[in-house]
């Protein structure tokens, strides 16, 4: 269910993707360092997956990039620190007392956008994720998949240069998850923002990302920086292809190697 396109829809212009440079980033919580001197360069418009088991520090890294946490050492630089940034949580984290409309409008409200402009952008985005009919429903009435789509719409409403997602589809069933993976890819292809996507699903990482960064609890740095070699757009059929399976296997091997040391 791809978003429809209107000739005057300004949302089809790709958002300028942020460029990030992480150098020597370290972070520890009461003991061993979760991140220890991590270096990472992220190009503009790149789709990056952070892959690893629990405790490897991928969520910590995402929070540091988002500015929700400060590194103990090292720097995180963005080419434009003022550019819009968006974060999608594993739980859709919608406000139950607001309608779908109200939830999607929140970032614009907090940013001081005028009412008229807000309404227009929210309507456009709901159209994109296919939830126009649900605009006046409340989160309590929606399924998990629908709630996540609202969360995505909310994330995109400020036309972010950087989109961060922390295992957003992990709580959903397999079919919804795959559907939303495809949907997310579509949104990214249309807009061109930089995406950092945290997951512990290897197949999801390979399906979505340009690059997969493998992390391990035993190592505070990147274990592997893997370039995914698959044509775009990746379709449902791609998941069953030999290339896909081979690359998933390679990453699985990497993960297994490093989990023995955990």
């Amino acid at each position, binding site marked *: 269910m791809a978003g429809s396109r209107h000739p005057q829809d300004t949302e089809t212009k790709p958002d300028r993707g942020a460029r990030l440079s992480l150098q020597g980033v370290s972070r520890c919580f009461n003991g061993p360092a979760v991140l220890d001197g991590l270096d990472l360069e992220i190009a503009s418009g790149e789709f990056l997956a952070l892959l690893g088991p629990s405790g490897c520090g991928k969520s910590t890294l995402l929070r540091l990039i988002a500015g929700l946490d400060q590194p103990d050492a090292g720097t995180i630089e963005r080419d434009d620190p003022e550019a819009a*940034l968006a974060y999608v949580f594993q739980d859709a984290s919608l406000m139950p007392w*607001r309608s779908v409309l109200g939830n999607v409008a*929140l970032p614009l409200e907090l940013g001081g956008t005028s009412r008229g402009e807000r309404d227009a952008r929210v309507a456009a985005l709901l159209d994109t994720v296919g939830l126009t009919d649900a605009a006046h429903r*409340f989160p309590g*009435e929606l*399924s998990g*998949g629908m709630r996540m789509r609202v969360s995505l719409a909310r994330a995109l409403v400020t036309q972010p240069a950087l989109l961060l997602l922390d295992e957003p589809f992990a709580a959903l069933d397999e079919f919804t998850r795959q559907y939303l993976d495809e949907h997310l890819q579509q949104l990214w292809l249309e807009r061109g923002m930089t995406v950092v996507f945290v997951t512990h699903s290897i197949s999801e990482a390979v399906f979505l990302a340009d690059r997969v960064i493998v992390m391990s609890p035993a190592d505070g740095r990147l274990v592997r920086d893997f370039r995914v070699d698959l044509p775009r757009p990746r379709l449902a059929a791609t998941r069953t292809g030999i290339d896909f399976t081979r690359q998933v296997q390679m990453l699985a091997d990497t993960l297994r190697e490093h989990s023995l040391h955990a």
Partner: protein
Amino acid sequence: MKAPTPEVWLPPVISLVAITAFLEGWLALTAVPGYLMPRPSAVMGALIASGQELLRATLQTALTASAGLLASAVLGGLAAVLLCIHPWIRRAFYPYAVFFQTVPIVAIAPMLVIWFGFGPKAVMASAFIVSVFPIIANTLSGLLSADPALRDLFRIYRAGRLTTLLKLQIPGALPQFLTGLRIASGLAVIGAIVGEFVADTWENGGGIGTAVMIAIKEQRTDKVFAAVLMAALLGLLFFALVNVLSRTAMRRWRLGELSE
């Protein structure tokens, strides 16, 4: 609102009838004198005979208790908002809020008479003092337990402290506030009644607390029970009203049928 189905109202009605019948029979059989424990039939008799008087008294208490509860809701809610602003404020002032919970109202009721004089104001003050703490405690808990993910979201969008308070914490605290209000509703009735013992003026006949006091003095044990019954029903009514309010206000939060 749909009328309650039989499976909702039938069990309590049955238990009520059963307990009343048992009491009536047992008290008759053991010939317990009426001045120690009146039979349900005697209490019913007193209720009917003094019905108008007790109803009017209950209404008077209902008014003062409502006013006290309203004051608790407003001032208690405000106090919770102030307390949620900073841990120092909480450490400095929360103990005084706890004081409202622990102070025995019977002991300070005479003080209320000195500060507010005899009459409805002192009775409302008593209702307020007894009912305000659950609202403060529960609302504060709600304000401080905003969804951490939403809090992060507000930080990402650079929302200020006040904005976060107004758009996230306060609306998010509604369920806890209503829980506090539910607890406070019955307490407000108790507070009003205790206040009446000390401060009620009987220009309009007095509240239900006064009615209890007089019935005790007149050694009308059946009327004492009838008045106490009315007081209990009033408390129940308050509780039920707050429940209805709560369900209505929280309707949107509720999970409806899944549509996908």
